């Protein structure tokens, strides 16, 4: 029985995944599917696309969904505008900066890690190769950001 009947129906959070590798996306998607939470996923394959989505330009001009993503999972090494640039733009934008960004990348370069935190990344995860480890990491990520953490409400444009 729902005691919080007065509260609005919880919205399905939107997760933006910026990932160029189909195999990596496949793995991520597969594990997200298993999550008990209903999460709608939006994938962008490069930086330009991600920025277009966030700013509702180009192909995303007529995007219905007026909500901003609840979380952005960002790969760093992207063709064209890479993840570092995407992160920098998001965190410099007064409006977008409140969206948590999790970098999910192969790079364990200390310089990358330091730079991302300097730009204001909320979390930095190195993609593991081990499948079991990957499962654990994805589960933790979802639970942490969509259950444990309180995100700002009504992230509207």
């Amino acid at each position, binding site marked *: 029985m729902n005691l919080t009947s007065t509260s609005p129906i919880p919205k399905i959070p939107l997760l933006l995944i910026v990932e160029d590798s189909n*195999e990596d996306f496949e*793995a991520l998607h597969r594990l997200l599917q298993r999550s008990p939470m209903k999460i709608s996923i939006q994938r962008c394959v490069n930086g330009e696309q991600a920025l277009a989505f966030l700013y509702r330009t180009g192909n995303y001009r007529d995007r219905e969904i007026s909500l901003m993503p609840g979380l952005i999972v960002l790969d760093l090494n992207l063709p064209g505008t890479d993840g570092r640039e995407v992160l920098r733009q998001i965190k410099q934008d007064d409006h977008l900066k409140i969206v948590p960004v999790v970098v999910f990348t*192969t790079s364990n370069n200390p310089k990358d890690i330091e730079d991302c935190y300097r730009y204001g990344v909320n979390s930095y995860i190195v993609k593991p*190769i*081990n499948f079991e480890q990957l499962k654990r990491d994805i589960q933790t990520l979802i639970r942490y950001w969509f259950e444990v953490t309180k995100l700002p409400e009504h992230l509207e444009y």
Partner: protein
Amino acid sequence: MADKTIDLTNCDREPIHIPGLIQPHGVLLVLQDFHLEIMQVSNNTRKIIGYQPEELLGKQLSYLLDAKQIQKIQQCLTEDFESINPLDLSLKHSNKSMYFDGIVHRLDSVIILELEPKKAKQKTDFVDFYHQVKGTITRIQKAPTLLEMCQIVVKEVRHITGFERVMVYRFDQEGAGCVIAEDTDQEIPYLDLHYPPSDIPKQARHLYILNWLRLIPDVNYQPVALIPPNHPLTNQPLDLSLSVLRSVSPIHLEYMRNMGVTASMSISLMQNQQLWGLIACHHSSPKYIPYNIRTTCEFIGQVMSVELANKEASEDIDYKMQLKSLQTQFVEALSQTKYFLDGMVQLKSQLLNLVKATGVVIYSSNQCIQIGETPSEAEVHALLNWIKPQLDQGVFETPSLSKNYPDGASFSAIASGVLALEISRVHHNYIIWFRPEVIQTVNWGGNPHKPVEVLSDGSFQMSPRKSFELWQETVRGYALPWKLCEITAVTELRSLIVGIVLRQADELASMNFELQRSNEELDSFAYIASHDLKEPLRGIHNYANFLMEDYAEILNQDGIAKLQTLVRLTQRMEDLINSLLHFSRLGRAEIMRQTVNLQDLLQQVINTFSITRPQSEIEFRIPQTLPKIECDRAQVNELFTNLISNAIKYNDKAQKWVEIGYIQQEPPNTPLTALPIFYVRDNGIGILEKHLDKIFQIFRRLHGRDEFGGGTGAGLTIARKIVERHGGRIWVESTPTQGSTFYFTLAPEAIA
């Protein structure tokens, strides 16, 4: 001992160029330019030319000489070479013809005419003169050495003049003179005698430079005054600097009498507008030398002056050749070396030979390297600070350091002679050569320290020295003087070294730049490569897992096993990539040295092992407490971890132990503290001798990858890299089946 400033005072101040007096062996007429009106005459005209002075004053010169002779004088003044000094002049008085050498020179607006009586009407002509000197000049030019040339000159001059004693007298830098050649029929030789600088005061030297020949026919002459004493138009005393009859200082005359000299003549020897020395002639009885013979002697002096430079240049020619070849070898060898300082040190014997030194110190930035016999480092340091402001064009030299640097007295035995060369002020590069003291005996022509007498009224009186017995002084604190060619050699050396150093610096800079660029490229390459390699690897890994998850019912055991192998291989591949990345990063990371307590660090490492491998029973032996050292904590932690982990891994004994300790080396003979040698010893499987050279190579494994707990084969490579980054060395001793010991140091060793 007299103060140097006193022994020269009244002598240096005597206005010897305006004595108002002449010697009595000729007459002097002062003529107003243009009209040739006689303005002043010497008070001996009556005796020499038969006219009273008063009779001549105010008259035209034509009163004495005919028009033809006056024309000669005027031509001489316009430097017409048909008529040069001396002029053949004749005067008639009381129907008697008298013949004279006329010597004329101009001084501002007056003309000074001096007349020296001649025996007969000799015509001096250039051809006679030429024949007289031709042979002499040839002999001077052909003389192989400077000293032989001087010997030829004194012989020739004595032959031409008939003086009892003719000497060449050479001045050193301080103005002291030394007789370097002599020709005499007198019993006592003056050869090698030294005379202090005060013997020839400053203004006398100046006159020697203006007027190259002086004659005193009789030291006991009565000086003759000029009438009127001052020039009537200017009321100034007449400048007699260029006069041949000028009366000399009474002090000089007394000096000559003390020496037993009655007649003297001296000719200046010049080099680079400096007074190099004198040709000095002495006679014990009065002796007059006619003007044309004097001219011949003066000419010989001039030829000798010209030859001086040639002779000095060819002096020590063999030695100079030797210096050149030493210099060439030195520079060739130096240009082969990587660093200026290393090169210098390798070439120590050449560096000493280059200037015949017995000790040399090389300064580079703040390092000081001593070769041969040198003062202590602290003494050299203080000396260099004293030298720096005195460097002249980057060079400082002295044969007697303690004379101007009292602190040098304590080490004058090994370093009286100092030659310092500044190579670079910015980089603090200096070379200082030392020469030992040479006890030498100097023969003074009289005691040089007693030229000054204190008069009864307490004032000082310069008086010529009276005693000319050989007075020997042992000069202390002097080394053999640095020869000009040696100083030239090091000056040349400097520019060559600077060239090499600059070139090396350029090369180094461009190498560093290249290195930095290639390092940066490597760095990003390593990360990108790892990323690009890992991505497909992850794909293979994940898809193999998807297969196992999604098709578990369909796959049989064999299929599952193959997929598991696939997964394990991707895992291994990732380990290799990670090791490689870590290794490449290690070579680039800055070493962060700090004081680290190794005992604490080792305890942490051991604790970590007990946590991660609780199942393994290992005895850790630590015989002595490890010291605190300066090192990079994280890297040294990894080093110990790798070595200890190997010691545990490659061990098949029931009772495994690992011993960690250090050996304190005997301190070498340097102020640097001795380096501890650390070791990690085990009772493990050991390493075969033939494999010892392979164990540090990356990914070289001696065992199957699944034996002894596996591993990528990068651990020891990383260990070696860490040690090398600290400037240390790592090596191993091992007995197969008994165990291995890895030794390492963590700091650069001192240069022995």
